[in-house]
């Protein structure tokens, strides 16, 4: 009876929205997530290698060119001492300075048969950004020095060595527009993590709410009037609506913040986040499907176990497939339309997050989207069918946790 489902959903919704934890998660998740991502984006943009090193080389011109590159380069702002040419006790001196932490390390350049050979010595072995800065600066210094020796005019060299800016544009719906790759990623990233958190949070809430009804024995009272299927449908609807409400609040807040005046007010003007309507529809659509898939699985687990503690042991069943989505995040972002990305986005447990991400940062072909939706819906149907059968028997079982053969038997029971 649909009205029963509605009543159950309404109760579930109101009871959840009124709780403090709803308020806290609604505020805290985007703050933490947005803040964290904003911080890392801003940081990576403005971070330049800032070590203090010594350059030791017999070739003074090369050493000075390298000093110039490292101190005023595109992505480095180091402090560089030049020692050229080295004397007999130079080596001991720089080693001591490094050991005493007066400098972070030293670069020793020898010229061997016209080919420079450089060794960087430091106290740490994992400063990747310093290594990369030195490597590229050294290459540029060698090229500049080489050209200078061949008699190329200094102004010409400067022009040739000037950094090139790459602008990007994207075609969407036949229109070419300027795109800022960084902000596109930023927006997609934030929503990806929000969906991750929302699916996880509300999926587990379904399981928790079932266990609560089990431990408080409300089930028997309820089952004298409603069918188990109605209870499950009402619960999914209720908790799902809570998730949508939360996401609605987030999307509205994001739109408000990204509106120009607000954005400059909060000082986020440099990072302009824009969400297209298509992206928001995809987000909500994939969230609903993702929620149904994962909360369906969670409902089956909730019906099988007897306590929150037992639920913890089964968290893996939900957490693991979600974690897979995180592992493949980097390869998918760097190449959203590769065969790997396409296959991953068609695996139902990954589809909601990964397909959404592909849509957000690229233009996947329509048949990829269609296939993902069809496969996902079919899987959801299957999961809910199985869950309904486990649920029906499981909620009246107290005490011993069922074994796998018992669960298979529940599934085969007819009404």
């Amino acid at each position, binding site marked *: 009876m649909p009205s*029963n489902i509605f*009543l*159950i959903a309404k*109760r579930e919704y109101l*009871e959840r929205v009124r709780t403090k934890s709803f308020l806290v998660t609604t505020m805290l998740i985007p703050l933490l997530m947005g803040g964290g991502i904003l911080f890392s984006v801003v940081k990576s943009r403005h971070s330049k290698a800032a070590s203090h090193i010594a350059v030791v080389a017999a070739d003074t011109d090369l050493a000075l060119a390298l000093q110039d590159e490292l101190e005023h380069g595109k992505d480095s702002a180091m402090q560089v001492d030049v020692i050229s040419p080295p004397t007999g006790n130079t080596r001991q001196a720089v080693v001591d300075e490094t050991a005493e932490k007066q400098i972070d390390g030293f670069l020793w350049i020898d010229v061997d048969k016209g080919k420079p050979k450089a060794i960087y010595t430091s106290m740490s072995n994992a400063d990747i950004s310093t290594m990369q800065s030195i490597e590229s600066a050294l290459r540029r210094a060698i090229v500049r020095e080489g050209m200078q020796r061949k008699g190329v005019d200094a102004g010409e060299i400067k022009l040739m060595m000037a950094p090139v800016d790459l602008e990007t544009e994207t075609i969407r719906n036949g229109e070419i527009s300027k795109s800022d790759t960084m902000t596109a990623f930023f927006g997609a990233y934030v929503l990806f993590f929000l969906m991750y958190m929302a699916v996880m949070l509300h999926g587990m809430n379904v399981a928790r709410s079932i266990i*609560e*009804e089990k431990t*408080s*024995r*409300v*089930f*028997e*009272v*309820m*089952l*004298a*009037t*409603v*069918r188990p299927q109605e209870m499950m449908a009402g619960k999914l609807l209720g908790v799902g609506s809570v998730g949508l409400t939360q996401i609605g609040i987030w999307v509205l807040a994001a739109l408000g913040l990204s509106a120009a005046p607000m954005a400059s007010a909060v000082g986020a003007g440099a990072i302009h986040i824009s969400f297209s309507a298509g992206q928001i529809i995809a987000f909500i659509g994939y969230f609903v499907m993702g929620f149904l898939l994962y909360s369906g699985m969670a409902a089956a687990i909730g019906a099988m176990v007897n306590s929150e503690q037992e639920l913890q042991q089964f968290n893996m069943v939900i957490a693991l497939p979600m974690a897979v989505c995180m592992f493949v995040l980097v390869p998918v972002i760097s190449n959203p339309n590769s065969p790997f990305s396409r296959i991953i986005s068609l695996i139902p447990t990954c589809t909601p997050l990964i397909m959404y991400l592909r849509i957000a940062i690229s233009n996947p072909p329509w048949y990829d989207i269609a296939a993902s939706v069809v496969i996902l819906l079919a899987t959801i149907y299957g999961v809910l069918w199985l869950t309904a059968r486990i649920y029906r028997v499981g909620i*009246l079982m107290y005490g011993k946790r069922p074994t796998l053969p018992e669960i298979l038997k529940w599934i085969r029971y007819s*009404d």
Partner: protein
Amino acid sequence: MSIVQLEHVRKVYDKKVAVEDLSFSIEPGTMFGLLGPNGSGKTSTIRMMVGITLPDSGVVRLFGEPFKRDALKRVAYLPEERGLYKKMKVIDQLVFLGQLRGLDEATALKRSHEWCERLQITEAIPKKTEELSKGMQQKIQFIATLLHEPELIIMDEPFSGLDPVNATLLIETMLDLRNEGRAILFSTHRMDQVEKMCDAICLISRGKEVLSGTMREVKSRYPRNRVQMTFEGDTGFLRNPGIEEAKLYNGSAEVRLKDESGAQQLLAQAVNAGTHITRFEVMEPTLEEIFIQEVSAGGNVDA
């Protein structure tokens, strides 16, 4: 028309037979006791009446028709395992459960208040369920069960966990409901309550009916062969050949006779011997005695 009618109902869980060939019926305005030791199939029987499980064979009729879920709107069910939503406010909870049973919100609200007054629990109305004492939660549960004015009220162990004051209040309320013409079925293993309240009983053991009928019918099947007496003086009459078993206490005795006719003879002998008798009562066996006798005759009290 019987309110409930069970015909040869059978229910098996895996290999355990929970209910076997059970038949009984309950008339309107009757208080019906479903009795039996622990694990005898009382809860299994009740669950089939409210459609939580279905019988493997046999028929359950409610209001004269084979079981339909629609009929449940006229039935109340208080399960043995009580449960309420802990975090919900009492009044929200009552209205929610009332609405599930087909009431509109206003009616559910009005009746909730009326019932809370009747059961003297108005102070609980604005509280959350988890803040209430166990006895108060029982009352709220009881109200939730009755809000939709059901014609059939089924209660599984309604008195377990109630203090004597609340148990008496519940008994009075149940008798009121019976007098309004509703049929009430409750299960218990406390025979003193059954003896006072029930119009008819069915005693089951190991899923099978041992005894059933109206209280009068059941009792009349057993001889009135119990004598209780209080006396002063000679106890020689206790050697009367008509006595099967006698327990002598300080100034009183409980006697079981071989047959009903022995009572007058016993009294005559005692009077002749000069014993001063202050009380001499011929009794039928109590329900508790019948229960123990019947159940242990089958050799299967699971306790």
